[in-house]
């Protein structure tokens, strides 16, 4: 069984990092590219040993790491999966990550898991549930949990607030901060017909713990524009523009370049991260996030 890393938590710097996926493990361990931090999906390392966890711990010896969960289903009307939470807490103890994050979404009901980031209705009921779940997780982990705004392809007819009102209220009531996914804001703005800057304006600088950037694809066979948060393409030009405005308003924070499908060569990810870094550099000096 792996012991916790010596030296404690290594903060994630307010610079542009890269989402690390298995095809790039060997390159990163052998070449040690100059990347400020790596982010991984927590669930891939839940095993109580084995080669994947061993790889992550070796990466962690050389880089700050952020753990980004996709399976906790915080917004499920069911109870939280205690075994999943226990495994996350064990991983956090082992890895001593600079940041730990999850999503403003649900993904399971009645014991059935959809393993997707499904949209919550923006209602008082869902907000109260999320506030209590964030508190439960933060208590279990003994540290802060960041929450990411998700992309969505539908809205519900009975919602009583906008997405930005919902996430801002969640931050205020729970005390958590956001992984502000700029691509998701843009995707939702197109999909649901709102001004992306309205979302950014509703968020206070102290609510942000990290930015995410990724690429989308557009569905072209529908009557209205619909963007899919596919993580399979470079960051789009309007998302870079929105990110620049978000950094100017919300400050310099760790920024992650995510790419999950049709993963390109590592150098492509580095180039995208450098572009994000240039925007951070132009906005101010880097600060440590955690």
């Amino acid at each position, binding site marked *: *069984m*792996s012991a916790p890393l010596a030296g404690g938590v290594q903060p994630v710097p307010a610079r542009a990092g890269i989402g690390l996926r298995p095809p790039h493990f060997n390159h990163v361990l052998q070449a040690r590219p100059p990347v400020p931090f790596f982010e991984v999906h927590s*669930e*891939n390392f*839940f*095993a*109580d*040993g*084995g*080669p*994947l966890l*061993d*790889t992550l711990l070796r990466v962690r010896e050389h880089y700050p790491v952020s753990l980004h969960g*996709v*399976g*906790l*289903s915080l*917004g*499920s*009307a069911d109870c939280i*999966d205690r075994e*999943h939470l226990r*495994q996350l807490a064990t991983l956090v103890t082992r890895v001593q990550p600079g940041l730990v994050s999850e999503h403003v979404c*649900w*993904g*399971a*009901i*009645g*014991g*059935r*898991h*959809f*393993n*997707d980031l*499904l949209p*919550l*209705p923006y*209602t008082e*009921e*869902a907000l109260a*549930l999320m506030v209590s779940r964030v508190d439960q997780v933060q208590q279990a982990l003994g540290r802060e949990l960041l929450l990411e705004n998700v992309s969505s*392809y*539908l*809205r*519900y*007819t*009975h*919602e*009583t607030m906008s997405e930005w009102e919902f996430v801002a209220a969640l931050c205020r009531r729970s005390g958590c901060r956001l992984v502000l996914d700029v691509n998701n804001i843009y995707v939702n703005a197109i999909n*649901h*017909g709102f001004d992306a800057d309205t979302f950014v304006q509703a968020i206070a600088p102290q609510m942000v713990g990290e930015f995410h950037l990724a690429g989308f694809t557009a*569905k072209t066979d*529908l*009557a*209205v524009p*619909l963007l*899919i948060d596919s993580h399979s393409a470079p960051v789009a030009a309007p998302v870079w523009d929105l990110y620049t405005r978000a950094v100017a308003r919300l400050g310099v924070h760790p920024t992650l370049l995510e790419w999950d499908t049709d993963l390109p060569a590592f150098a492509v990810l580095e180039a995208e991260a450098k572009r994000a870094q240039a925007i951070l550099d132009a906005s101010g000096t880097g600060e440590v996030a955690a």
Partner: protein
Amino acid sequence: MSRGPSLGQLQYAFAAMMQDDLGSLPVWVAGNGLEPVARLRVYRHSIRAVHASALETTFPALLAWVGEACFADLCDRVAAQTPSRSGNLQHYGAGMAAQVSASAVLATYPWLPDLARLEWQRQACLLAPDMSRGDTRHLMRALADAEGDVRLRLAPHVHAMDVAYDVLDLWRHAIEPGPNMPSIRRSACGVVLWRDGGQVAMQSVSVATARAVSALIEGCALSLALQRAGLDDAMPMLQLLVEGQWLADIEPVSDLPVPGA
């Protein structure tokens, strides 16, 4: 805005939608220029793709042998019959071998269920906990000195199975195709799987040896494991366990607590 469902009602309706029961869900979805059903279809497609991708990762050889279209059909059957029960997709796919067995299209390839079982065992081996190896000399001495029956505790990553077809070569050919197609022969054999340097290793053994190792993994005492497997001579299996450094501990059966005492 309209009076809507509770969060639980909405989420259960979503679950029903995934099983082709749209119910009231479209009424609660804002169309905004699209039919609500078209918006829901995006999620159906996305969830299907996520689950299929997980199965492609776990069953690469099966995918190579049956092709993408057939594999996609198998993925849909697995999702319908044995849906995901965890937020961690690494545990999704236990039902694949059963779906391969049940497939009429694949009935002429009777070795495919064994291949699927092999890949599921590989996944279990990959995800098994770490455990420090026992000192081999100490363990051998304990084994030699044992006066009665013993229980052999194996490293958690060691797995064993018996198969009706020798599928090891078929698996290897799918992952790294060579110039010669391996022969497909019905020949019952055993397979032992373990982790070696971060990789899953596999070795053919006799059916009896595989069954004895399986019984040890289940916690049977050595004598019962040998009896179950029909093995008269324990030495070849013990040699395998020692050489593979798979033995973690040896406990005299008499020292173990008696269940219910």
